[in-house]
């Protein structure tokens, strides 16, 4: 079939969503204010662990303008409890009540909800609610949680050990016993929080006339939220609509179902009025899911030439107070053991993961999920082995990468890597940095007494996951497909509707590029709709670096179906064989006879014009819906290189250069790929140097403002040099590989390794992140005196 080569896929197309976002015409949840709307506010627990003896709401209800106050029992009567089930028997299922039911398990847990005529009034009312708490001993960390003398957070589980899982290959104990060198470390990656610039919020509206619930939410996954709300509220699926038009960042934090979404829906249904809740930053830091908080004890065995013989690791994650829906408490620790072997040939492996409940906010998915700690660990161990053996850190990686002849390679955790450019990305990064020259500059700097270091981190990530594997280990909810509906109107313009939901990724642009190429129209003629379950075909949303792969694949399939029909119609109109029709510049022409052509709009007009315009027997209309399932998914990889300097006086770490070579397969829009890398790296640098959620011994959040939780500003982020390899995925339509998370996966390890390299003359290793100036000062301590 004669279709010209793609024109838009691969081009740096400026974004279609920008004009509205640049002019203040976005459509975020808080921008909506339907008539009769009430404002909600939540009373949140000041205690980390307590029984609730009594709640008195009378003073709140007496306040003029207060419509209602809901408590846990009210919600329990109107909605089933949220339970994140797992297919893995060693992952315990526990309930997460939207409002506390007799017990609070972390500071910031929602206890009561007020709806009032203004947000100000609602907060006044919250202050008038009186709660008698009976404080319980606080389970402060995983060691305490595993102590049999400690309280058990969830009686139904009978233990605080909610997750236990193991992956193994071969006899790692024997391999390590016989290894020429074993390097060991106890790594600690502290608690992190995503900090979307838009706080979470939602707006529920229940129409009694049609018995339909519309929930606008700052959700990444409107489809997932719709499915679970349907179940929890006992409503038919076609009467629940979830809308997430513009969302101010997600990064995984908005991928889970949240208590407020349920409570707000219940409130709106009960009152028959729209109810809006917009979280403030304090609520965000207290109650949006946190990330990481893992301790990893790991040992890597290598032969004398640096060849890996085995890896043994135990991961313990502080999963906080609740297992979140739908990903479960297993998501972080089990992902970490899944990806610890990295892009390396790993003959023997044993990774054990534990997820332990404590009195902190729940852990949830965040950009990279489990892999930033995994890469920090394996890349840290590779550097330790290289230093001990006197091998260059890039060389030891090259000796161990899965090689071209090894693909497809099955990792010890069962993931199959398709043909990837692990070696290619490192070699290219070395060139981009001018590695040898940088090493020489480092040597000169050292002579001059400066602490300069070069850090390398290579990783591979599983992206675009299809139906054969759960996105979160053990999760029973299927997320392996997405669909596209492409519809021509009679005037030749295209509406393309997707179940994914863009919240900064620019999918309105990239998916339009794919659609435009497939059906042969300019991008201006394609409008992409997303993030609205009422208009889209079935889908779940945007998370896990899946949207371009799954929705892009569906767009290709639907586009092809439409194009085939257009060729039939064009052949009929031109009295030519459809096989002889070519498509270019918005016209379908007979091959070699450009004057015998029809415009796209003539074809679309014909499609809706009945019997005379259409080939005999052809169904009228020009519209197609196709589902795509990539089955296993694919892989993206990258090598990051960082050059840092540690200030001898202040222990401040300055990132002098940052190079990324990434391979996300065939690129749809390099402008957007670059942007994803930049943003991901910035979050990774924040995680490595600045950002830490801190609780005190009473379970009180000490980092409860943006003064205390330090998000990097433009001054802390270096200019980045991003390079691309394009190895088309052999297993996805279009050859795309997902790439939304990678920057955050590689950066913490690259920065940590660069600091360790800078301080190598002092014999200091990086085992704890984030490495604040204070931590670095304590590490360096007296060792610096009289040394390099």
């Amino acid at each position: 079939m004669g279709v010209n080569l793609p024109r838009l896929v691969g081009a740096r197309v400026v974004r279609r969503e920008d004009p509205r976002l640049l002019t203040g015409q976005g459509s975020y949840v808080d921008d909506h204010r339907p008539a009769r709307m009430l404002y909600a506010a939540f009373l949140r627990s000041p205690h980390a662990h307590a029984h609730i003896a009594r709640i008195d709401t009378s003073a709140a209800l007496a306040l003029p303008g207060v419509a209602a106050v809901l408590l846990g029992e009210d919600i329990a009567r109107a909605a089933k409890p949220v339970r994140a089930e797992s297919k893995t028997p060693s992952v315990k299922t526990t309930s997460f009540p939207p409002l506390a039911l007799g017990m609070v398990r972390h500071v910031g847990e929602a206890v009561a909800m007020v709806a009032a005529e203004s947000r100000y009034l609602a907060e006044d009312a919250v202050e008038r609610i009186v709660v008698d708490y009976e404080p319980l001993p606080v389970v402060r960390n995983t060691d305490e949680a595993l102590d049999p003398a400690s309280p058990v957070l969830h009686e139904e589980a009978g233990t605080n050990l909610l997750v236990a899982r193991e992956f193994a290959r071969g006899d790692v104990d024997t391999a390590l016993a016989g290894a020429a060198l074993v390097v060991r470390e106890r790594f600690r990656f502290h608690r992190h929080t995503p900090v979307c610039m838009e706080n979470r919020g939602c707006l529920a509206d229940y129409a009694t006339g049609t018995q339909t619930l519309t929930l606008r939410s700052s959700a990444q996954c409107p489809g997932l939220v719709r499915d679970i709300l349907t179940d929890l509220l006992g409503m038919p699926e076609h009467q629940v609509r979830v809308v997430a038009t513009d969302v101010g960042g997600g990064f995984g934090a908005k991928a889970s179902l949240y208590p407020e979404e349920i409570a707000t829906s219940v409130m709106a249904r009960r009152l028959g009025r729209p109810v809006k809740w917009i979280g403030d930053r304090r609520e965000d830091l207290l109650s949006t899911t946190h990330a990481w908080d893992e301790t990893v004890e790991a040992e890597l065995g290598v032969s004398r030439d640096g060849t890996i013989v085995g890896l043994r690791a135990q991961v313990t994650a502080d999963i906080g107070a609740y297992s979140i829906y739908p990903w479960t408490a297993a998501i972080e620790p089990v992902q970490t053991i899944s990806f610890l072997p990295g892009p390396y040939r790993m003959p023997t492996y044993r990774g054990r993961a534990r997820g332990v409940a404590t009195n902190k906010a729940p852990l949830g998915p965040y950009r990279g999920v489990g892999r930033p700690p995994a890469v920090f660990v394996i890349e840290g161990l590779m550097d330790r082995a290289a230093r001990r053996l006197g091998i260059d850190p890039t060389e030891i990686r090259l000796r161990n990468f899965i090689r071209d002849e090894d693909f497809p390679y099955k990792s010890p955790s069962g993931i199959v890597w398709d043909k990837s450019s692990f070696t290619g990305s490192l070699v290219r990064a070395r060139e981009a940095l001018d590695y040898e020259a940088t090493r020489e500059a480092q040597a000169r700097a050292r002579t001059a007494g400066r602490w300069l270091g070069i850090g390398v981190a290579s990783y591979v990530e599983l992206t675009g996951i299809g139906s054969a594997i759960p996105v979160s280990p053990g999760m029973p909810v299927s997320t392996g497909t997405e669909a596209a509906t492409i519809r021509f109107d009679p005037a030749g313009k295209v509406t393309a509707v997707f179940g994914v939901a863009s919240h900064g990724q620019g999918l309105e642009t990239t998916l339009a590029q794919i659609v435009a190429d497939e059906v042969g129209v300019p991008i201006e003629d394609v409008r992409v709709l997303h993030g609205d379950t009422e208009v889209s075909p079935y889908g779940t949303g945007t998370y896990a670096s899946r949207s371009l792969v799954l929705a892009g694949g569906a767009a290709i399939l639907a586009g092809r179906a439409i194009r085939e029909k257009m060729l039939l119609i064009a052949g009929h109109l031109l009295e030519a064989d459809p096989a002889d029709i070519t498509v270019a510049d918005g016209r379908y022409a007979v091959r070699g006879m450009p004057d015998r052509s029809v415009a796209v709009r003539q074809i679309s007009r014909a499609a809706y014009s009945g019997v005379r315009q259409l080939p005999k027997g052809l169904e009228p209309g020009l519209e197609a819906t196709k589902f795509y399932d990539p089955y296993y998914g694919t892989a993206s990889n990258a090598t990051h290189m960082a050059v840092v300097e540690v200030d001898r006086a202040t222990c401040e770490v300055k990132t002098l250069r940052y190079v990324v070579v990434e391979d996300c397969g065939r690129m749809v829009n390099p402008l957007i790929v670059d942007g994803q890398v930049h943003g991901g790296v910035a979050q990774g640098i924040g995680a490595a140097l600045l950002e830490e959620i801190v609780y005190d011994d009473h379970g009180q959040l000490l980092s409860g403002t943006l003064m205390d939780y330090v998000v990097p500003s433009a001054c802390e982020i270096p200019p980045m040099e991003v390079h691309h390899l394009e190895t088309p995925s052999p297993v996805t339509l279009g050859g795309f590989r997902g790439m939304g998370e990678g920057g955050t996966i590689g950066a913490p390890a690259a920065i940590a390794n660069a600091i360790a390299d800078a301080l190598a003359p002092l014999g200091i290793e990086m085992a704890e992140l984030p490495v604040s100036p204070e931590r670095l000062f304590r590490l360096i301590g007296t060792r610096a005196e009289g040394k390099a």
Partner: protein
Amino acid sequence: MADIVTVRMTVNGVVHEGRCEPRKLLVDFIREDLGLTGTHVGCEHGICGACTIMFNGEAARSCIMLAVQADGAELVTVEGLMRDGKLHPLQEAFRDHHGLQCGFCTPGMLMTALDLLRTNPSPSEREIREGISAVLCRCTGYQGIVNAVRAAAPILASER
């Protein structure tokens, strides 16, 4: 509740009068009472900068000001940047250089960058980074924003 007060301010060249509680935040007044939802609320404690507007010609955070403090003031919000139905050169540069992703910090970032270019028409990269450090962006890693501000600087300077 407290007495209701009348406030009058010029926003994007139009005089507005409204009645609100004395405790009402300026950003809430702008968003709710004036319906100008382009200005965003990100932290309500003056750190993230998403709510930044022009207040009597200077960038200011509207989340830590009260509406009554703006009585008689002249404000510009992101809705006031377009000229003759076209994007402002700075908005154009943000689009060309992928200076926004989710768009939530963007209104505050635009106002802050405008203030920077007003006081320093040809800033160095370091000066741009310092100038925009009053606004947090979680999506772009600031690279697209820095590039956009650098590209817009000579265009704005030539218009002065």
